[in-house]
């Protein structure tokens, strides 16, 4: 379970991106929605342990991300929108590092690379790859081990159709083994059938919608409305 307790965050003083967010996200698929610049990616960075809240506590399965750093991050797989792997190591070096950190056999790095269609590119630096290949490399890192918390920022962006199918299958399999999946996306349709709840952001406010309509069309309509922005009178968390 992801738990945020009175989390505040801003990039510039006086311009809060998240203002006093408190929420609990249980296992299952949660879609993170909102218009551009609403704070979706920042929220994902906070729960992935990339950014530290200015105030408040973010924890995963009871472990504070900034007090029990290693334990809290042990089960996280984070796929950012910007695939920012270091340009000074090869893709294979990075994947081997992830294997060791997640205590997975080093051979799984090669398997993940093959699965991501980068089998021949393991000895390249990320600078030598296209945007789609860079995103595949970060996905390959997420496939190592059996992470229980998947934090995916626009996972289908820049992916070809085959890879999109592979990503959706991976998410479905992860949900089947009771993982917690957070997806920030504007591309709703592929995830609507599996979504358990939605979390919408706008102007530092958030709304967690726990019960989605069962009817697929109504469900999609509700999610689309949330992705355009929170209604003015929506209750906030």
């Amino acid at each position: 379970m992801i738990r945020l307790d009175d989390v505040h965050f801003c990039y510039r003083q006086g311009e809060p991106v998240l203002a006093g967010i408190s929420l609990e996200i249980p296992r299952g698929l949660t879609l993170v929605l909102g218009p551009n610049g609403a704070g979706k990616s920042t929220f994902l960075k906070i729960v992935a342990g990339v950014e530290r809240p200015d105030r408040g506590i973010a924890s995963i399965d009871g472990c504070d991300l900034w007090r029990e750093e290693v334990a809290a991050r042990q089960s996280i797989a984070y796929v950012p929108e910007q695939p920012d792997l270091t340009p000074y190591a090869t893709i294979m070096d990075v994947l081997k590092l992830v294997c060791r950190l997640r205590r997975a056999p080093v051979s799984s790095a090669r398997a993940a690379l093959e699965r991501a269609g980068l089998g021949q590119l393991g000895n390249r630096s990320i600078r030598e790859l296209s945007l789609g290949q860079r995103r595949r490399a970060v996905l390959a890192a997420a496939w190592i081990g059996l992470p229980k918390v998947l934090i995916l920022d626009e996972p289908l962006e820049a992916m070809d159709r085959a890879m999109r199918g592979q990503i959706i299958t991976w998410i479905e399999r992860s949900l089947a083994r009771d993982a917690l999946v957070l997806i920030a996306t504007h591309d709703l349709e592929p995830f609507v059938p599996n979504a358990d709840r939605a979390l919408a952001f706008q102007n530092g406010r958030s709304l967690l919608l726990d019960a989605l309509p069962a009817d697929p069309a109504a469900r999609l309509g509700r999610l689309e409305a949330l992705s355009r922005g929170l209604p003015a009178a929506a209750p906030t968390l």
Partner: protein
Amino acid sequence: MFWDASGLTLLRFHAAVGARVALRSFAVLFCAFIAAIMLQVDPAGTVAAIALGLFSDPPSSAVLLMIAALAFLLPAWAAPRVSLGVNGWMRHLPLSDGGNRRGLELSLLIVQFPVVLAIAIFALVARNHGAALGKAIWLQLAVLLSAGAFAALPVRRRWLVLPIALLCGLAAALGSWPAALVSLPALVLCEIFAGPVRTVRRRRRARMFFSFSFGIAWRALGWRLFGAYAAAALPLLASDLFVANNDLRGDLEAGAYRLGFSIGILVLMVILSRALAVRRPPWPWARSLPWSSGRRVLDDALVLALHAAPLAAAGAVVHPEAAMAAAALIPLLALRAAAFMRSAREKRAGLGSFVAEGVFSAGLISLLAWTAVLGLAAAPAAFYGARSAECRLKVTRWLESHHLAAGDTLTWSE
């Protein structure tokens, strides 16, 4: 009672473990020693010079430091090996925490057998050359070896034992026999307050992470390393020329060297940390991986400290004591540089405050050599400061000085 039959059996067991580990290191050290001696123009003369240096009055600091390095490194290497299983299956046997610990201490002392053998050979050589083998040097050596064993002891209160053992070792290596004598009660206190043995994991994972960080830093620095070393060599050369062209003796000479060496180390760290801060900006995605902010800070500090070590070694050739004092500043400077690397891009002064801190520290140890110990003592606080800077860093915030205006976050302007 520890000294009963079961206690002695435990000691024998640990002694055997220590002896086996010592044998593993013996062959390597023996070959390295023979190779180093045979490469000298006069091998026999070199051995005699070392032996006479060790058993002269006062003993040569350089030889004692060499022995100190081995006395500390051998047990540190052996500790994870000899302590394997101490907290596992053996815990169900009727043994006390104290008994376990004392057994481990014995095994870490026995691990130093190759050093003891070398000392015995030097003693024989020195005696053949007519040197008197005074009692004081034996006391110093005994304290040095014991301090080395204590420093590697994996115990609950290692935070207490390690600094005391290091200070005792330093006192025995650089001080005279009274300093070594005073160190003995300190080591006894270590034994009393050390607490139960903790299992040490072999640092494969840590080594792997460090080699990864080191590789990245190495590639990011590239040819800039040569420029950094050339610039850092200038203060060293300047201090040497200053001493050669002025009639300086004793403390004045040492002070000049201390200033030159520490400024050289500072120059190197400033150049390297600036290059790393710009060319290898913080890596946001890596912060989601299961490693700690402390580990990332420590990796950066180690990269800087390892690059500064050759400078200190070069200084030791010219003036060992001044180089030791300057080397004591390395941990503090490396950790402060790691902290400034994280905040420099958000400050108008950039690394300016780090330069000011470094010049102040260098000036201080130049005037008062003993303040180098304060530098060492301040290292833990510097570590926490750097860790806090790493946690506070808003790593994904857009900063013009880092990211190229074209918008590619993997390309940056200098």
